[in-house]
């Protein structure tokens, strides 16, 4: 990594808000097309869902956010009842990594994003 990039935050290195928008578009499409998890998205308002994905990705990109574990718990409680478990969470992380790979994000930064996303696991799964 060069000297200039080390001074930038993860969010800046990824390209800031514009990069989040691009990533959401690809990420949400991947999630909806993924037969392992797409049943959890049946019947949801797609615009609201995309907005939530944006809030999630902003957090995972290390950007400004008001992440609340409790909101995440409340928001996913219904899905946990439907059977949401670790395998589904893993699938989402996999789609996130695939999205970033598609956008030519270096592996090291992808690992950092995945680690931030990973911090939501317990809240999402209601553990």
């Amino acid at each position: 990594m060069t000297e200039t990039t080390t001074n930038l935050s993860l969010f800046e290195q990824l390209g800031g808000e514009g990069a989040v928008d691009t990533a959401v578009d690809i990420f949400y499409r991947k999630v909806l097309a993924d037969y392992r998890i797409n049943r959890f998205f049946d019947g949801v308002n797609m615009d609201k869902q995309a907005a939530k994905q944006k809030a999630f990705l902003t957090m995972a990109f290390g950007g400004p956010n008001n992440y609340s574990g409790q909101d995440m718990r409340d928001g996913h409680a219904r899905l946990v009842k439907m059977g949401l478990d670790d395998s589904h969470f893993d699938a989402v992380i996999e789609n996130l990594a695939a999205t970033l790979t598609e956008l030519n994000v270096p592996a090291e930064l992808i690992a950092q994003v995945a680690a931030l996303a990973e911090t939501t696991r317990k809240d999402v799964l209601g553990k």
Partner: protein
Amino acid sequence: MTRIKFDDQIFESENEETVLQTLLRNNVQMPYGCKTGACQCCLMRSIDNSPPAESQVGLKDTQQKQNYFLPCICKPENDMSVELPNTKNVWFESDVIEKRYLSENVILLKLKSKEPLAFFAGQFVNLRRHDGIIRSYSISNIHNAEHELEFHIRILPNGNFSRWVADELEIGMPLSFSHAQGSCHYVEGKLEQSLLLIGTGTGLAPLYGILQDALFHEHYGEIHLFHGSRDASGLYMENELTQLAQKYPNFYYTPCLTGDNLDFETYTKGRANQIAFDKFQKLNGWRVFLCGQPEMVLQSKRTAYLQGASLKEIYIDPFSS
């Protein structure tokens, strides 16, 4: 110091405060979520001035044009009058000036407003009968100097309102209507963009308005309209649309039928949305309008997105059926 007018009250914003902070500090009940402009839970509309552009980031172009903004990231530059979406309860008066059958069970109803109107073709208004019964209908015409509004009314066998329109409403009679609402309409610009219009039944009404609007603005990208029904009696305005397709080389009209019909020289067999999505499998960069039967609309929205259309460029009107 700027002032925020909301619900007949005026609040002064303190330095560097967002509109949301000002309202919450004054104990106004507001829906909100992320407070960073992402979740759009707190969406509001500015009634007088255009809101600051940075408070409209991430909204649909149709919403931006209607002065919607996100109060959680809006630091007001000037005084603002604001409202929450769909809370207005104002009625306007009009007279019926035309009523004719477009098909066996669809009526074209034309109203003339007593005062000037602000609307986009494809938005919907609530129509209110003298006894208070209210129904939502999409506007099928573009703005004109005569302050006219056109609707396609499907007559339902037991439809309280639609049967009344068919049997009792006469030319010259008054009818109240609400503000135009909804984000399913054409926005001028990107004239080269391909447009995909898919509708079932009287979902044609908003699409016809959007088509008129696009042609009025000399949209030159391809415009593809797929109108579906079970049998031929469910389609209407076929002559007008066929003539438009002959007049405008960039406009294509495909009437689709799912029932057993022998005349497949005129009609394409199958569901309008499936035929459209089979024909255009890559929708990257397209603007997509979906109107009509709610299940078709929501399913098609997902398909359009999965086939490459951006969510911000998919406009839906699931109210008509």
